[in-house]
C-alpha cells in the first residue's frame, strides 16, 4: 500500500520559485541565508560550515573553492580577496586559471557564486534561482555592476542589490526590534562602511553613508606582518619571496584573531630559515593598526557631522564584520562617541541575515520600506577637466535628473559626454564610469541645439543614461556599462528567460553565458555598423547582415550550441573588417567631429 506523505504536501505552499536567498559575498568569507516560512537559516556547505572562504584554487582543470581549498596543500596558491579587485577594473583579465588562460575578477567571482549556489541547493535540497546580493555601501557603480554581472553569470537572478550596512540594520530592526537612529560600523576583510539609519515601524531609511572601499582586515594582516618582520627580524617585506610573504601574512591573520581572545602568548615564527619564539601581545598589534583605526573613527565622525545629528541622538552603534572583534575597535568608538554598542547578532552573519529577510519580503510583498542612498556623487566632465555634479552623494535612490546641453561650435553634430563618480573637483581625480557620444544632432549655430540628457540611478544603484535632441527627438539610450556594452537590464532578461527554459543547471549556465556573449557582440557590432557599411565590400556586408539576423533570431530561442556557432561565424565574417580598422587607425568610432560639451 502506498502511503501518501501528507506533511510534504502541506509544506508545499512555498514553491521553489518563491525562495530568495540572501547572499553576502565577502572579501574574506561569503555567507548565504534564507528565510522560509517563519524561520531564517544559514546555509552550510558539505563541511557543515556557514562561513565559506571566498577563495578559488585553480589546479589544472579543477577548481577548488571555499573550505575545500583551505585544506589543500597548495592553499597558498589560491586566489584570495577577489572582491578587492572590483574597485579597480573587474573586467580586466589579469589572473590566470589552472590552464594558464587569462581571466578577470568577474570570472573568478562567478566561480564562487556558482559554488555557493550549488552548495546551498545541496543543503536545502531545493533549486535556488533568486538572490538578494549585498555590496559594500561605498562601492561605486562599476564595482556594483561587476558583482551583479558575476552573479548573473552563475545563473542567479539578482532580485536586488542592497548595501551591507543597510542589510545589517534591517536584521537588527526586524529581529531585535530596534527603533531610532542607529549608526552601523562595518569593518570586514577588505572594506570599511558606515551608514546612519533611522529605523521606525515599517520604514528603514538611510540618512547617509560613507566609508573606504580599501580598508579592512587584510590591511591589518599586512601591517602586523610588516611590524613583526621589522622588529624581530630586522627585515622588510620586500626581502621575502612571494610564497614566504603570503605564508607570514596568513600566519599574522591567525595571530590577530587569537589576540581578540588572549592578551598575550608566545609563538614560534620562522623567517628565512630563522626560527624565533616571540611574545605576541595586544599592545604590539594595536600599534601596528592604530592609524587605520583612527581613520575609521574620522570617517564615522565626518558622517555624523554631515548629517547634522548630534551624537546624543544616536541610539547605538551596530558593529558588523569580523574585524570589529578587534578589542581596540570598541575602545576607540567608546572613547570618541560614548554610545551604546550592539553586536548581539553575529557580526559575520548579520549581513546575509538581513539580505535573507529582504529577499523574503521581496517575494512575499514588501511590508517594510527600505530607502537607501547613493554613496558617491555622480556628474559629468565639463570643459577644463572639471566635474559638474548632477546627483550628489547621499541622495535617496531611485533618482532621475535631467540636464540640457548645447554645442559650442557652429555646425557641431556630436557631443561626447564623460560620466564621473566621486567627490573631487577635477575629473581626473574621480572615477570615469563611461563615455558616450550623442551623434546625429542637427547642424545649427553654436548654442542653439538643446540636448536633454537623463541620468537615472535605479534602486540597485545602477546608472542608466539616455539623451534626446529636443529639436529632432532622436533618442539614444546609452547605458554606462562594462566594456562589452551589455547592460544590466539585458542581462537580467537573459537570466530570467534562461532559468525558465533550461532543463538543468549546467544548460542554464551555458545558455546564459552564450547569450550574454552574443548580446555583447551584437552591441559592439552595432556601434561600428556605419563603418562596416562604408568600409566592407557588398558581399561581406550581406554576409555580416545575414549572420546578425540569424544570431538575433537565435537569441529568442534556447540553444546554446547554435548561438555559439553563430557567434563564431559572425566573428569570422567581421575579421577582415577588424583588420581594416586597425590599418586605418580610426580615431573615433563615429568618424564625426566630436567635442566636449558645454553647458
Amino acid at each position, binding site marked *: 500500500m502506498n502511503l501518501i506523505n501528507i506533511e510534504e504536501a502541506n509544506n508545499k505552499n512555498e514553491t521553489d520559485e518563491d525562495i530568495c536567498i540572501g547572499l553576502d559575498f565577502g572579501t574574506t568569507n561569503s555567507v548565504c541565508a534564507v528565510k522560509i516560512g517563519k524561520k531564517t537559516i544559514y546555509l552550510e556547505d558539505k563541511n557543515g560550515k556557514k562561513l565559506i572562504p571566498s577563495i578559488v584554487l585553480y589546479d589544472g582543470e579543477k577548481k577548488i573553492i571555499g573550505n575545500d581549498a583551505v585544506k589543500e596543500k597548495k592553499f597558498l596558491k589560491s586566489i584570495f580577496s577577489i572582491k578587492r579587485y572590483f574597485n579597480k577594473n573587474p573586467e580586466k583579465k589579469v589572473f590566470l586559471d589552472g590552464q594558464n588562460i587569462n581571466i578577470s575578477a568577474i570570472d573568478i567571482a562567478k566561480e564562487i557564486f556558482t559554488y555557493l549556489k550549488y552548495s546551498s541547493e545541496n543543503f536545502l535540497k531545493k533549486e535556488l534561482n533568486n538572490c538578494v546580493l549585498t555590496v559594500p555601501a561605498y562601492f561605486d557603480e562599476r564595482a556594483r555592476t561587476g558583482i551583479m554581472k558575476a552573479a548573473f553569470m552563475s545563473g542567479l537572478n539578482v532580485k*536586488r542589490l542592497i548595501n551591507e550596512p543597510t542589510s545589517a540594520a534591517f536584521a537588527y530592526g526586524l529581529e531585535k526590534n530596534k527603533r531610532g537612529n542607529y549608526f552601523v560600523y562595518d569593518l570586514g576583510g577588505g572594506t570599511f562602511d558606515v551608514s546612519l539609519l533611522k529605523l521606525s515601524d*515599517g520604514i528603514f531609511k538611510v540618512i547617509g553613508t560613507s566609508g573606504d572601499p580599501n580598508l579592512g582586515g587584510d590591511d591589518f594582516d599586512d601591517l602586523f606582518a610588516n611590524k613583526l618582520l621589522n622588529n624581530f627580524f630586522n627585515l622588510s617585506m620586500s626581502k621575502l619571496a612571494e610564497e614566504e610573504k603570503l605564508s607570514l601574512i596568513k600566519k599574522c591573520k591567525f595571530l590577530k584573531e587569537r589576540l581578540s581572545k588572549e592578551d598575550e602568548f608566545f609563538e614560534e615564527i620562522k623567517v628565512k630559515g630563522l626560527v624565533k619564539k616571540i611574545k605576541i601581545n595586544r599592545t604590539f598589534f594595536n600599534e601596528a593598526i592604530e592609524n587605520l583605526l583612527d581613520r575609521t573613527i574620522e570617517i564615522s565622525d565626518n558622517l555624523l557631522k554631515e548629517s547634522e545629528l548630534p551624537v546624543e541622538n544616536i541610539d547605538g552603534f551596530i558593529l558588523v564584520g569580523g574585524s570589529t572583534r578587534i578589542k581596540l575597535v570598541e575602545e576607540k568608538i567608546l572613547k570618541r562617541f560614548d554610545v551604546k554598542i550592539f553586536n548581539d547578532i553575529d557580526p559575520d552573519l548579520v549581513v546575509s541575515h538581513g539580505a535573507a529577510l529582504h529577499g523574503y519580503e521581496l517575494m512575499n510583498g*514588501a511590508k517594510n*520600506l*527600505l530607502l537607501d542612498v547613493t554613496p558617491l556623487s555622480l556628474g559629468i566632465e565639463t570643459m577644463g577637466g572639471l566635474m559638474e555634479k548632477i546627483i550628489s552623494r547621499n*541622495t535617496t535612490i531611485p533618482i*532621475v535628473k535631467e540636464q540640457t546641453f548645447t554645442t559650442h561650435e557652429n555646425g557641431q553634430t556630436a557631443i561626447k559626454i564623460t560620466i564621473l563618480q566621486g567627490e573631487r573637483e577635477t575629473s581626473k581625480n574621480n572615477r570615469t564610469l563611461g563615455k558616450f557620444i550623442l551623434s546625429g544632432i542637427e547642424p545649427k549655430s553654436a548654442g542653439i541645439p538643446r540636448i536633454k540628457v537623463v541620468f*537615472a540611478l535605479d*534602486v540597485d544603484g545602477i546608472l542608466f543614461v539616455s539623451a534626446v535632441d529636443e529639436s529632432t527627438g532622436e533618442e539614444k539610450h546609452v547605458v554606462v556599462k562594462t566594456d562589452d556594452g551589455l547592460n544590466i537590464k539585458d542581462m537580467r532578461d537573459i537570466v530570467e528567460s534562461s532559468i525558465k527554459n533550461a532543463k538543468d543547471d549546467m544548460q542554464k549556465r551555458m545558455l546564459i553565458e552564450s547569450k550574454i556573449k552574443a548580446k555583447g557582440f551584437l552591441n559592439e557590432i552595432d556601434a561600428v555598423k556605419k563603418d562596416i557599411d562604408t568600409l566592407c565590400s557588398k558581399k561581406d556586408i550581406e554576409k555580416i547582415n545575414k549572420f546578425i539576423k540569424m544570431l538575433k533570431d537565435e537569441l529568442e530561442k534556447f540553444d546554446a550550441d547554435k548561438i555559439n556557432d553563430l557567434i563564431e561565424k559572425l566573428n569570422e565574417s567581421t575579421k577582415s573588417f577588424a583588420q581594416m580598422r586597425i590599418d586605418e587607425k580610426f580615431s573615433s568610432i563615429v568618424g564625426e567631429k566630436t567635442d566636449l560639451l558645454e553647458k
Partner: protein
Amino acid sequence: MNSKENCWNCKSIVKSKGFFCDHCGVIQKPSYLDEFEIFGLKKEFLIDLNVLEDKYLELQSKLHPDKFVNSSQNEKDFSNEHSSRINESYKLLKNNVSRANIILKSNGYDLEKESKTFGDEKMLEDIMDLQSKCMLAENEISKKKIGNEIKEVIDETINELNLLFKKKSWKEAYNLNVKLSYLEKMKNNIS
C-alpha cells in the same frame, strides 16, 4: 492636463493624476505633476515638514520598486519613475531655497537662469559682513557664536520671504531667495 485618461491595463477611465487605477488597482504611468501636487500640498512657501515627510513615506510605501519585483515590466518601469520623482521632489521641497525656487520658477523667475547677483547694495553688505566674521572665527566658541548669528538671520529672512510670497512680490522674493541661498551655504561651511 486635466483631461481623462484610460488605464493602460483595464482601459477604464482614470483620474489623470492618480497613481493607481480606481478600477483594477494597477499602478499608472506617471503623468506630470509638479512637486507640490505630488504630495497634495498647496503651493505655499511655508509648509509643514512633518506633513511632507508623512506623505512622502506613505507614497513610497505604495510605489517603491521593492513592491513590484515580481510585476510586469510596465509596472516595474512606472514604479521606478514614480519613486524617482517622489524622491527628487521631496528633496527639493524639504529645502527652503529650492522650495522657494519652485514657486518662483512657476512665476517666471528661475534661480538657475538669472545671474546670481544681489538686487540691492544693503543685502550685499550684510552678506559680506557675515562672511568676514566667518573668516575670522578661529576657535570652536567663536564659530558657534557666528553660526548662531547666521541661523538668526536665516530665520528672519525666511519670515520676510514668506511675507513677500504672500504679497506675490516675485521680484523681491527672488532677490531675497538669492540671499537665503548664500546664508545657507555659509551655515553649512561653518559647522
